[in-house]
């Protein structure tokens, strides 16, 4: 059995766990704990080690999706999780500009770990307070070449679209590298 992995990262409460849950064929193995910090109490639990989802491609190949913990104090996990990944997805909550700085920081940290392809998913685009994609692009300092995709993490279609765009990027990079 061959296995490959992708990493879903992003700030606290960006929707990483929901993203993996939407597409994984198994119940996400989630290591969640009650939140102890008052400042981060916008939800009741958070991922402290990693989320883990699985998509069986065929009898020989399995794709694993790893979600990183969102809280900064668990950032020592990021490098471990990014080891050997095909690519990564940075999730950002479109309604919480206060997390954009952290999203930028996570993105730059991951870019520095590994020169792998990545896409950025602007989650919660269905909410009225969501920032527009082009504003998010500027706030995150994404170049025009970087794929920034609208997403609603609990809707399978948008999650599929994000994963596919990442795979297209991986394929394009392989083809460009092979020339």
């Amino acid at each position, binding site marked *: 059995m061959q296995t490959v992995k992708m990493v879903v990262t992003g700030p606290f409460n960006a929707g990483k766990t929901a993203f993996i849950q939407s*597409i994984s064929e198994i119940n996400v193995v989630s290591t969640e704990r009650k939140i102890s910090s008052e400042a981060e109490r916008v939800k009741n639990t958070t991922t402290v080690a990693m989320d883990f989802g699985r998509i*069986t491609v065929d009898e020989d190949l399995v794709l694993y999706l790893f979600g990183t913990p969102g809280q900064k104090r668990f950032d020592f996990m990021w490098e471990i999780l990014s080891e050997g990944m095909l690519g990564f997805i940075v999730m950002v909550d479109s309604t919480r500009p206060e997390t954009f700085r952290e999203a930028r920081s996570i993105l*730059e940290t991951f870019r520095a770990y*590994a*020169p792998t392809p990545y896409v950025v998913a602007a989650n919660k685009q269905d909410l009225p307070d*969501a920032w527009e994609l082009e504003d998010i692009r500027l706030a995150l300092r994404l170049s025009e070449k970087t794929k920034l995709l609208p997403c609603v993490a609990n809707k399978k279609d948008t999650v599929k679209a994000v994963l596919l765009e990442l795979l297209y990027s991986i394929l394009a*990079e392989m083809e460009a*590298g092979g020339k």
Partner: protein
Amino acid sequence: MALKGNLRDFTITQLLNLINLARKTGTLVIEGPGDTSRLMFREGKLSFAQFGQEDCSLAAILLRASKITQNQYRILRERTAQMSDKELGLLLINAGYLTQEDIISSLQQYFIDVVRRLFTWVEGFFRFDQDVFTLDGKITVKIDLENLIIEGSRQLREWEQLQEEIPSLDMALKFTDRPGTNLKNINLSIEEWRVVSYVSPKNTIAQIAKTVKMNDLEIRRVVYSLLQAGLVELVRPGGMPVATPARAFPTQNKDEQKSLVNRLISRIRSI
């Protein structure tokens, strides 16, 4: 969808950066501690600014700029109370009291001063109302934002924040391809110019720091200013092309790797 948020997490400088890069037209309303200020923009340039309840009439601005005396200000207020700023400006120019340049430069200086004062606001809410632009009788100007952004960025001094903004010094810098930005029109400091001269995808930030003899804090400050002004962007160093590392695949054969990615694509499409 309105652009809104909290200044604690999204600074005035970052807002100016966004407005500048997106060439936005509209009104930025900032509700700070006890006051509400308004900045108006046309195509990414500052056109008007109002600080709280401060008198921002042309007469008051000319008085602040010492273009008229206190006595002249009082007379103007009494005799031209019904006039708009545009009408008053024309009257002063036609009467030979002031030139158009006097008026425009006074307004520009005042608006820049308002933005500088707003840099000190770290608490409060903001919202950007797109295309809401009503300035009856007011004189508007066009002020490029790059210099203000650089100035505001220099005020970010906290090590932790800078480290969060630029977590890795192993990245390189490249000039952005944005049209309309002319480096010559931007007031860079000597330190910033020294760094600018080494900006290239071939040089990591750490290498630039070593060459220009800056420590981690100093180089981060400079790079942050340049990033905020939209002059440069972070890129992977030239020798490191984007590619999925071979160890990410269970096979080292290129064709098999492509086939594997295509199988993943087919499977995800079918879900």
